[in-house]
């Protein structure tokens, strides 16, 4: 009896395995190759601590895709955006990228929003050979140049150069640095320290603060001891607003420079009166209406701001433009490629003179950011609003 059932069971098991194999095989074969639609992946930190970056980026990418499709797509191909939320977390970002490449079979990826998440996915992107345009600011993303990795956000190198140029023009000599303890602050601090000698400046003290600290008077007191001519603060909200407040409370009469990380109305709201007279570099978007008509970015900026504010009914921030530029650059590169990744990459590398929201892009094999210091303007906060400095 028992010897009789044994082969029978074995037969069933084999049959089952065969059936399972068949199901999987057929599903693998039946996946239709995307012919009519170009799928583009988007990964942004839509929620979590960096949602102020990811949320406008997601909205801007969706808006750009909608505009492109409305105008007939690319060579007749419609675009479909597949967007995942990274929550600003590197491991979730890596998983999303794997999903985009293996499951959704996208032909290019835009995002993520933050430098740490971008750095985490670069090996995967390089290995999979997929065109990738990051929206993060960190300079390490494109330095050294990696063939498949591009970025649209202005590098902190350029922001530091703009600030230092301004300090130098005013004849100031010594500076104190206070930066936040994360990748953004770290990268900014490195650039501030590295570029100071080039502009003849001396960094007399460099301090750090935690992103959620409630009080920075101790650090500022330490900087005050060295009596610098100016203080450069490098961080994203809300820390820098506390620095501005504490500086006023300590009645320290030292010019404060902030980074482009706080270039949003939120900073003025948080720091209130203490924000007055703060100087900072920003992309032109904050001062779009103050720009001269001859500015190459004037038209695209006005279009973007109007479209965004009409569609989402919220004030535009400087960050959504990174994804908007990335989408339009990609659309330009996709033209005539039929979705061939290597061709898209090559086209991206050869884009010249593309006026975007964040600047005029001139990519080359040795420059995958494509922006120059003109992408930044210096602004002063006066009476609760921005004032363009020539």
């Amino acid at each position: 009896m028992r010897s009789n059932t044994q082969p029978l069971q074995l037969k069933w098991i084999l049959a089952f395995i065969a059936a399972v194999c068949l199901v999987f095989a057929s599903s693998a074969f039946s996946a239709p190759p995307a012919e009519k639609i170009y799928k583009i992946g988007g990964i942004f930190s839509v929620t979590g601590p960096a949602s102020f970056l990811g949320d406008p980026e997601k909205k801007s990418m969706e808006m750009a895709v909608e505009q492109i499709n409305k105008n007939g797509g690319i060579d007749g191909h419609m675009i479909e955006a597949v967007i995942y939320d990274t929550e600003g977390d590197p491991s979730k970002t890596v998983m999303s990228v794997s999903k985009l490449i293996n499951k959704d079979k996208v032909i290019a990826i835009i995002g993520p929003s933050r430098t740490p998440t971008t750095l985490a996915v670069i090996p995967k992107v390089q290995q999979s050979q997929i065109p990738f345009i990051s929206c993060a600011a960190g300079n390490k993303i494109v330095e050294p140049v990696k063939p498949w990795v591009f970025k649209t956000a202005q590098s902190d190198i350029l922001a530091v150069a703009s600030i230092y140029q301004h300090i130098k023009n005013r004849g100031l000599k010594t500076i104190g640095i206070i930066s936040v303890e994360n990748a953004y602050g770290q990268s900014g601090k490195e650039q501030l320290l590295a570029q100071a000698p080039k502009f003849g400046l001396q960094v007399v003290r460099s301090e750090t603060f935690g992103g959620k600290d409630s009080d920075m008077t101790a650090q500022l007191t330490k900087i005050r001891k060295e009596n610098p001519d100016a203080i450069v603060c490098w961080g994203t909200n809300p820390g820098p607003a506390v620095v501005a407040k504490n500086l006023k409370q300590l009645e320290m009469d030292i010019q404060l420079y902030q980074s482009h990380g706080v270039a949003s109305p939120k900073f003025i709201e948080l720091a209130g009166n203490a924000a007055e007279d703060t100087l900072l570099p920003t992309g032109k978007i904050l001062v779009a209406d103050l720009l001269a008509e001859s500015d190459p970015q004037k038209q695209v900026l006005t279009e973007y701001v109007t479209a965004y504010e009409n569609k989402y009914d919220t004030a535009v921030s400087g960050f959504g433009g990174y994804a908007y530029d990335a989408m339009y650059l990609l659309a330009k590169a996709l033209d005539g490629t039929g979705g061939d990744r290597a061709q898209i990459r090559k086209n991206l590398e050869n884009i010249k003179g593309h006026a975007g929201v964040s600047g005029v892009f001139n990519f080359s094999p040795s420059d995958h950011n494509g922006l120059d210091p003109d992408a930044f303007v210096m602004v002063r906060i006066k009476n609760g609003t921005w004032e363009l400095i020539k």
Partner: protein
Amino acid sequence: MQEILQYIFSGITSGAIYAVIAVGFSMLYNSTELINFAHGEFVMLGALSFITLSGPFQLPLLSAFFLSVAGVACIGMLFERLAIRTVREPNPIVLIIITVGASIFLRGVGMLVWGKDAHTMPPFSKHPPLDIEGAKLLAQSIWIVAIMFLMAAGLHLFYKKTLTGKAMQACAISQKAAWLAGIPSKFMILLAFGLSTGMGAVAGVIISPITMCGYDMGTMLGLKGFCAAMLGGLGSLWGSLIGGLLLGILEALGVGLISSGLKDATAFLLLLFILYVRPSGIISSVNVERF
């Protein structure tokens, strides 16, 4: 000298906040032998509701203060009634894990109600900072320290002079014996939750003008307050005050004299050290059991 004084001033400011939070931890522990890890979230609720009431709703500071503290205390009591009392086998580990869950829940609620951005408000009084030997003392710091002492004194009187306070302490010593003596122990625990979370709200309110308040501010403040309570001796009112101030001053001095990277490390190194050499804290009022 001027620098040291400035470090001490900023240390006292943040130390007083830690102290108020630590007193909340301590008083709940004193009455229920429970550590409420959602305490930091009640601080957040207090701060944000105060900002909303005094900002968009335009209430005068004093009524906004009482309304937000009372509101948060009600939420605290609701929390006790719905999540703590209903536990069938209330052993400490289960209850502590419930409070951790509650903290995640409250943070989520805070994010939905107030959004992901930070909020702030102007100081209570427009007085310019005082100049003492070149170091600046903020008017708000004086408010914070004054409120801290008022609260501590009030709590001290409540425990020593009122019947309810004594009944609450009796409950902590033995719930069953207190019940046999006619003390409504369940009500006492409810009251303890209300008082403790209300105190958390006070901490939130007084901190709101000097910092940026967001839905995620509670975690770090709660942990620092817990460190301060452990440092001073869990369950001891004056121990919590001393622990909080000590922690704040050591943090500021650590930043000023050694390195700014050490700020948060100071609290946790201190906590480890205390747990190692003197697990009952500087001023020990109760025997601490390790479970």
